[in-house]
Structure formats: structure tokens, C-alpha cells
């Protein structure tokens, strides 16, 4: 079976862990996340022709106290930058993380604007954010709470990786 390592990155509290939880039934407890900064789950995505197993590395959120842990990006087939549409600062933090990540890997990057079940305080289409869109291979608006677009995002990622 094809396996791929996928990393989830983003500022604190943007919903990375919730996204993974929505996508898989997690088996490892949350304490791993705070102990070593990453929690790993797996999920098999079935496409029409074949199956692909994602190893999802859910990385601890970055803020001024937590430095970006680039070591976990090693060998990743793709990474997902998660941002929060209720917090305008999260897109800037996300772009910062993306810039750091780009220094160690050139694998496909996906932007996920999460919490679309809540009112947005900013939009990716806003003029100041326009330039960011071209940095990413794929872009989604999701809700870990309602599950909107979550499955679709991972399926699209699977197709992208298999095509490559």
C-alpha cells in the first residue's frame, strides 16, 4: 500500500487536532502532543483505483512560546497550513510557518481556512491576502466542527499526491 506522511501546521488553536479528529478516530491520547510536540494518526483514503494511507503528523501549534519544529517535517509528502477565519492574525502566522517550512522542504503545501461554521473576520480574497493564494498548491475552507470539506480536502490531497 502507498503510504504518505502529511504534516499539519499552523498557529495555536486554529483547529489542527480537531481536523484530524474529524477525519480519523484517533487512538493516541492528546498527551503525546504536549510531550514531544507531535501526535500521529493514520487514515486510509480509498480512491476509485487505489488506496493510500496517510500518516497524519499533527504538530503542536506555534506561538511566541513554541518554536516551529522543523525536524518533524522531514520526509513529509505534503503539509497542510491551517488558519482560522475568525482570527486575522492566524493567516500571517500561517504564512510565517509556511516560509519556515519552505526552507526545509519543497513538497506540496495546502492552505486550509478552518472554522467556516463561524462568522469570518477576514477573507482570503481580501486585497491584502491576495498574494498568499499563489503560495499553495490547494486551498480549502473547512469546518472541523461540522465536517464540511474535511473529507474532500484529504481526498483532493490524495489525488494530488498520486498524480505526482
Amino acid at each position, binding site marked *: 500500500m502507498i503510504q504518505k506522511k502529511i504534516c499539519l501546521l499552523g498557529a495555536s488553536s486554529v483547529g489542527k487536532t480537531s481536523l484530524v479528529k474529524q477525519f480519523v478516530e484517533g487512538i493516541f491520547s492528546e498527551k503525546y502532543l504536549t510531550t514531544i510536540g507531535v501526535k500521529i494518526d*493514520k487514515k486510509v483514503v480509498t480512491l476509485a483505483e487505489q488506496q493510500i494511507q496517510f500518516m497524519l503528523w499533527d504538530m503542536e501549534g506555534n506561538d511566541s512560546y513554541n518554536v516551529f*519544529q522543523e*525536524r518533524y517535517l522531514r520526509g513529509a509528502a505534503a503539509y497542510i497550513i491551517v488558519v482560522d477565519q475568525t482570527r486575522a492574525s492566524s493567516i500571517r502566522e500561517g504564512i510565517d510557518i509556511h516560509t519556515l517550512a519552505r526552507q526545509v522542504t519543497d513538497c506540496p503545501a495546502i492552505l486550509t481556512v478552518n472554522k467556516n461554521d463561524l462568522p469570518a473576520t477576514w477573507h482570503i480574497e481580501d486585497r491584502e491576502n491576495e498574494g498568499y493564494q499563489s503560495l499553495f498548491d490547494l486551498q480549502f475552507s473547512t469546518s472541523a466542527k461540522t465536517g464540511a470539506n474535511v473529507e474532500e480536502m484529504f481526498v483532493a490531497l490524495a489525488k494530488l499526491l498520486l498524480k505526482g
Partner: protein
Amino acid sequence: MSKDASTEHAESEKQLEQVRNLLLGKDNSRVTASFEKDARRIVADVITEALHDRQQRDNSVDKVIQPFVEDSVKHSVEHNSEQMVSSLYPIVGSLVRKSVAAFLSDFMEKTNQLLENSLTIKGLKWRIKARQSGVSYAQYAASQTFVYRVEHVFLIHRETGLLLNTVALDNENKSDADIVSAMLTAINDFVGDSFLNDDGPKEQLQAVSTDNFNLLIKPGPCALVVAAVTGNPPQKISDQLQLTVENIHSLYLDELNAFDGNNQRFEQTENLLQDCLLSEQKSKPTDKKKIPWFAIALLFIIILFIGYKITNWIKTEKLHTKIMQLDAVPGVIVKQLNIRQFDDITLDVLRDPDAASINQWLSSHDLNEQHFTIIERNYYALDPSILRQRAQRIIAAYPDLSVKWQDSNLILSGLLDITKKEQLHNALAIAGFTAGQNLITDKLQLTSALPMLESREINQQVFDDIIGRIGAIQLNFPVANEVINAEMHASLQRLYQYITQLEPIATALDINFGLLILGSSDNTGNKTTNDIISLQRAKNAADILLRKGINKDKVFVVGLGQIEIPGISSTARTVMFNIIHINQSSITNDIKQ
């Protein structure tokens, strides 16, 4: 000066290269070509030795060849099965025998082990301790039985942390191996970064240990081999892991470098990883083959138990058949027989009082009556032998009578007075003998009643009884018919007998009597005709009686015609009898008065 020297050096290098090209050809093509020509011969000369040497050095040849052999066999089985069958045929028989023998021996061994572990004190202790330490019994038993044992081996891609292959001792718990390997990689990275050594290479996790469990990690440039070991792992395991990781790198270097997430290319590494599943038992097995005493004992007990049950069943069946013979005894019916144990038998029977006693029958058949609970209820049997016995018991009270049996008919003859005859008749009727059916009393003669009569009261009672019986006789005719049929004949015969019995008693009691014969008819049709037919019926009955020998002077015939009583009048086509009697002595007394 130095510049000249370097220019000169470069010049000579260039010339040397030209000479090299001339001699060896471009890219050593002449040398390669000359080798290629003889390559086959050269390799053929040394291939066997080379394979032998390499195999001696690191056992890697057979692991490389094994997949080819497997594929070839598979191909042969699929495409040339006939040939395979004929090649294997001579050894199939012994293979099957060996396999069955191995299976049985393994089964016995496992059963014995199971019993030993489950039933012995050691086994129970282990169970308790396993529960206390919160591990499964199998794990605890393994930790007690083995000095060490490799439970799992993982092959992990170093860059991505993805699982390339895994082997487990029991082929279970493989499902989370990929997450375990990813987590292990993350932990490894975490440790490597946390204890970063500025001067040298990154720190690398070598082992993770708990009280009973060890993860041994052997890193290679592209992949890690990790062994999960219970107990105390010796250096041997580490050496084996090192050897395996080296082998994998030498055989799969290209695949490891080009790894894109597809781990199918590493399926063949299973053979190499299997070599790492090492273990050592605590107590070395002795050369002498262990005899599975527990299994043998259990088998023996089971056989003994089954044997006991079968013997018991056969014995019970025999006893049952023996006791059921009682059912064939005349006058005994076995309702229920329940053998709980050989000394606890319940026998529920119906028994004729004249039949053989149950206890006697049991003792005559060598059965201990103490073992029986007998529930006995009485009934009257109609078995010929019982009837005969019963009749003999009754007739024993009449020693003057002689008894004869004709088939199952009782024939009585002799002299008997009227009262005793009556008693005998009654007793025999209760005992199942009916005159005319299985009782013949034609030859039974009455003694002269007169001297035998003991008292006037008894005679008077018998007299009243007989006239009562006579009054009870009634002939019923069909519509417009006055003919005496066979049934009526039988009734008239009985009537005749009563009259003959009555005569001596009447004489003794000094009573004059006469027989009234009363004919009647229903109320349909003409009254005159009815009067005639009623009289005719009475006359016909009287004729029969007169022919039998009854004195004509004692008979008075009357035709009553229609009997006008509601509910009777429409069907009263009868002849009735009545005795009219006058006590002479009372008449005399009246005159005297």
C-alpha cells in the same frame, strides 16, 4: 615558476589521458569489450565458489535466492502442475504421515502445556501475578518462560518514518505497527534534537527500556530496524539486528533511496527480518523427550469415565430388560420402571390380588427386593390363568362341587342348595364369569330345598328376591309385531328357571302363587286391534312357558290394550310378568279370627 610547473603538470595529464584513450578506448571501452566477450566464461568459472563464499560470510545468498525460488515454484505449480505432481508424488505419502504425526505430537504437547499452566500451582500463581501486574497471562508466561524473546521486528524508513515491513512472533497486533513506527521516529527526532551535540553527529536513540520490555533500535543510513523484546536482550540480538540492517542496505539501497511511500517493494525483506525473531527459554529443554503426563492422565480419566458410563448403561439396560419380564406375568402390569441407581429402583405396578406376589417374583429372579421401592395398586385381571385361579379360590368354599375346564369355560356340576347357588353365582359374576359365556352351570343340580331351609326368614327373603326378578323381566316388541324372538326366548328361559326355583320355596312357606302375563300395545292405530295384539303377545309368551313345563293352571293371561300413561303410551309394546301370591297360613288365621 610554480605557474610553469602547474602548466607542465596539466599538459602531461592531458597527454597521459590521450595515451589512456588510445590504449583502453573511450571510457575503458576496449577493456570492457574484452571482458564482455569472456564475461560468461569468467563468471561461470567462479560463480559457485563466489556464492559459497558470500553465503559463508553473511548468509545473504539464500535470502536473495529465496524469492526467485518461490516465484519459480509458484510458476511451475500454476503452469506445469502435472510435472510438479509427478515429481512430488513419491514423497507426498511420507510428507502427509510426517505432517499428521507432527500435528498430533504438537497437539498433545500444547494440551499438556495448557493443562500444566492452567492446573498447576505454578500456573495459578502466574495467573494471579499477571493480573496484579496488569498484563495478559500469555505475556506474563512468556516473560517467565523465556530469558528473552523478540516479539516484533519493524523496518522503518528513516527519512519519512513510514513502516516498510514488520514481522511478529504471533502474527497478531500488527495493525498499529505503522503508527508505532511513526511515533518512534518522532521520539527519535525529538531525542536527537533535544540533546543536540554541536560538535558531532546527532544523537541517536539506541534502546527504549522498561522493566520487562525493550525496544532495540539499529539505525542505518536509510532505514532503521527495531526489535521489540521481552526479557533481557543479549548482545546476540544487537549483532543480528546490525547484520540485518547491513544486509537490507546492501540489497535494497536503490529501493530505499527511491522510496515514494509504496512499501510493496520491501515485502521480500520478511525473510531477513524473520532472522531477528530470536528467543531463549529459561530452562533448557532436556534431550530426553518430555512425556506429556498431564495429557495422558486426562485422556486416561476421560476413557475411564466413558468406559464406566458405557458399562453402567449396559448393566442398566440388562436390569431393565430383566425387570420388565414381570410385565409378562399374568395379572401384573408394569406401569413405570425407573432405575436411578442399581440400589434405587422404583417399580410402579398394577397387580391382581390372585397374581404372584411382586416380592416373591423378585427374589425368585435373584433381585434384591431391598433395592426396590414398589408402588402397587390392585386391579381385576382377565387373564385366563388368573380367572382360573380366582374361580378355584371361590369354588374352594364349595367342596361338594366338581369343576371342569373346557378351554376358558368353567363347567360346574354337583348338588347345591338354592341359596348357596345364588351366592356362588354372584361371587363368580364379580370374578368375571357370566353364565352362558364362560360359565356353564347346566349340570349343577339343586338339592331339595325343604330340609335345607334353615329358617322361614331366609326362605321368605329368597322368595321375595325371585318374584322381584320375575317382575323385572319385560319383553319389548317391535311395532305391530307379536312374534317371540331369540332374545325374548332367553328371557323366558330365565323366567322359567325362576318359576321352578320359586315352587319349592313357595311350598315351604305355604304360599300359593300364580303368574300373571300381561300384554300391552302402543296407542297408534285402532283400539280394538290394539286390544287383540296385546292379548296375542301375552298368549305367545305364555305358550312358550307352558311348553317349557309350567303348569297351565298357574298362568293367567291378560291383554291390557293401550296403556294410557303419558310418555309411555306411544311405545308400550310389551309383555310384563307378575307373581300373585297368597299366604295360606295367613288366610287360615283370618278365618280363625
